[in-house]
């Protein structure tokens, strides 16, 4: 996956990623139209398919609303890379097949507008075709879910051993 970086700061909470007033929506495409609206109402107008969100510490804190990573995914975001994640967001993202990758100092190493290429298997992030960053390896079990394309597909394929 390859795209442009959009950088936000520490503590990007679920109300920023998808404000509560949109929780009544159930169509993922409609939810995607409001991604990041709580902190950057111009985001959906500028994000392109494949783009990557860069965060600082504790990305996704707050609500259990899966509508937050749904909004990111359906706005075109291909991965979220942050210094650390809140637990429920991290699981929700992986369950949707949206990689949430932990990378120390990423908010210092990448700026908005950089081109970011993510190689999940190699555990690497390539910035502007030159600089390489390593992310914290995805736990094997989560990797299986991501490789399946999310928990829905994983359970379909592994119903017997679940």
């Amino acid at each position: 996956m390859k795209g442009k970086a959009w950088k936000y700061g520490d503590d990007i909470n679920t109300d920023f990623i998808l404000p509560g007033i949109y929780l009544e929506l159930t169509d993922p495409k409609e939810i995607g139209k409001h991604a990041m609206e709580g902190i950057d109402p111009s985001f959906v107008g500028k994000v392109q398919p494949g783009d990557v969100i860069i965060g600082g510490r504790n990305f996704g804190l707050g609500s259990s609303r899966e509508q937050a990573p749904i909004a990111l995914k359906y706005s075109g975001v291909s991965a979220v890379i942050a210094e650390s994640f809140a637990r429920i967001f991290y699981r929700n993202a992986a369950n949707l097949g949206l990689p949430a990758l932990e990378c120390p100092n990423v908010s210092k190493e990448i700026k908005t507008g950089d081109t970011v290429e993510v190689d999940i298997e190699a555990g690497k992030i390539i910035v502007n075709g030159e600089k390489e960053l390593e992310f914290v390896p995805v736990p094997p079990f989560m990797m299986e879910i991501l490789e399946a394309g999310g928990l829905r597909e994983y359970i379909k394929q592994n119903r017997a051993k679940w």
Partner: protein
Amino acid sequence: MSTIAQKILAKHAGLEEAIPGEIVKADIDFAFMPALTAALAFHAMYDMDIKKVFDPKKVTILLDHIAPATNITNATLHKECREIAKEQNLETFYDINSGVCHQIIPENGHVYPGMLMVGADSHTCTHGAFGAFTTGIGSTDMGAAIGTGKLWFKVPETIKIQAEGSLSRRVMSKDVILNAAKQLGADGATYCALEFRGSTISEMSIGARMTLCNMAIEVGGKAGICMPDQKTFKFLEGRVKNEYTPVYSDKDAVYKKTVEIDGMHLEPQVACPHAVDNVKPVTDVAGTKINQVFIGSCTNGRLEDLQVAADILEGEKISKDVRVITTPASPEVYKAANKAGIITALMDAGAVLCNPSCSVCFGGNHGILAPGEVSLSTSNRNFRGRQGSTEAFVYLSSPATAAASALYGVITDPREV
């Protein structure tokens, strides 16, 4: 040498022991969903090629965040939830007349010590107040849980919150948890369970313990747990129909760390905009002008919360510059408050009484803030934009501080009224 969190997960995973960091697959005793996440959870379950929930007695849906419906979109969502509940033959279903999920679940006997429960709402950690392991999950995880009766968990380390000493007059459990949030920080307990121990906790009512556990998520916690005791068993008597076996942490259990709180000398605390860990003693922020006070939510919408507000407001009038929105957490709370004269006292003082629901807390129902307005709320989150405009400001406090502040239109130390 296990904590209560480890023991409950081990038991439900069929293991002798559950070691922090390991991933276990565990059996779910009960699963619940508010409307706003329920439809997505069922869509996920159907996408997994599963047609029916694993046990219609162990799954429920509650219409609480927006109640009654406020527009056609959420009315349609409510309609879908009612249809799903019927189709799935769910034994229980809680419509808009029921109240906040985290109040309804214990009142109706769905929680008991030693159980493993999941809820598609981040404040599901509230129910750890009953000595259970209960945690908030997203909709796809919920789809898996209700479809298969199982879910995977990373066994958490536990942080002990040790609170000793009796709280002073008008200092409440909310002040204890806000102080803990200040000490830990908003990500201080990520992927950890919090265990509340000490004489301050033993002295607390069940409702006060629910307030503590409710906010475990605000420091990143996966669960917040109190040891069950006679108060727990008394509350559950006549509500829980099944047998249960209480579980307790071992004396030699290993903790990641201990946070100490001096209950006796604790001052009322206030979380300032726009972070739950931006906590100051009330004396530091006293005098801050406010426009709206909210008394309610799964954090502080119980009888004792309304009682303390009524004790302060009875026979008085709220400031002309402030509106007070009070929302009892459930009909049981509302009726008890009515019987005790609390509702009349609050209304006579000038408060608006709303029907049991999530109400003002999450900014999608009513009580929305305009740009530049300031709210003092007894709920659990003060993120920018949480209760309406992104240009509004939300402070969090106990019901005592909220009621005292309503009298003067500025944040006020409740010990002085």
